């Protein structure tokens, strides 16, 4: 179960509305390498994970990703909230506004709605953790492309924080994968060789 704290993990305080930025940042809300995909991926994979370390890692990083989903949602919300219709139209956000108004809808930057096809849950610890390592790098890459597209410090700071968290998560998943590999390679056979006299038929 979860318990909610009424505070963001990292503050979002964006002065200037900017629908064009909202339209691309939303990719980290509901896009292929976004926080919703990350969260639901880890929280679903944990049921069949092995080793206490890797299970806890999936559980807790999946939980932190929910807090990141909230941060990204707050960014999109604040970037849209005080935007005028003219600004929305000029920024090319008219199609989004038509379907969702100023609501925060989980979709990729190019408009593809969130789908579970963005993620995999294989039920195999090596497969799942290897996917998670890639996922963290893809999310880091996305945050860097987003950072490339703005110079508003109010937007940059939370983006930089979120990017840093992907780096930390990648490190922890690497350690979890090593634990799982070590566990799978541990010799677990304690069979004594059968003494010769037991094989005699005479």
């Amino acid at each position, binding site marked *: 179960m979860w318990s909610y704290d009424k505070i*963001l993990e990292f*503050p979002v305080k964006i002065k200037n509305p900017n629908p064009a930025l909202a339209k691309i940042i939303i990719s980290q809300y509901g896009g292929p390498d976004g926080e919703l995909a990350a969260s639901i991926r880890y929280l679903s994979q944990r049921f069949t994970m092995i080793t206490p370390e890797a299970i806890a890692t999936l559980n807790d990083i999946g939980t932190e990703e929910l807090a990141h989903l909230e941060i990204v949602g707050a960014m999109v919300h604040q970037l849209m909230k005080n935007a005028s219709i003219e600004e929305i139209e000029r920024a090319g956000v008219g199609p989004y506004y038509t379907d969702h108004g100023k609501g925060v809808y989980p979709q990729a930057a190019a408009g593809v709605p969130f789908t579970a096809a963005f993620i995999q849950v294989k039920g195999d610890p090596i497969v799942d953790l290897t996917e998670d390592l890639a996922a963290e790098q893809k999310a880091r890459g996305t945050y860097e492309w987003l950072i490339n597209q703005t110079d508003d410090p109010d937007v940059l700071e939370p983006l930089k924080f979120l990017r840093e968290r992907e780096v930390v998560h990648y490190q922890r998943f690497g350690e979890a994968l090593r634990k799982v590999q070590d566990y799978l390679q541990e010799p677990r056979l304690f069979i004594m060789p059968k003494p010769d006299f037991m094989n005699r038929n005479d």
Partner: protein
Amino acid sequence: MININNMMELKRELSAVHMMLEELQLYLNTHPSDRDAIAKRNLFAKQYKGLKDEFNKSYGMISQDDSFSPYPWQWVDEPWPWEYEANFKL
């Protein structure tokens, strides 16, 4: 009367201490035998609890399951964390 500056300062402290907790907890998941890290984590857990209690007393409910509410039910009070006004300036 609530002093907004003091409230934001407390939120800043809450965020900082929570970040230490988050980081140490993830680290400990893959390093469960690091005695020093456990001691640090427990210290921050105590600090976090203290700060949340202080916030609850002065500015309202912050923790869904731990905070106490006066009358009327305070959990519904705005602003929610995703609003501009709820956040401190870096």
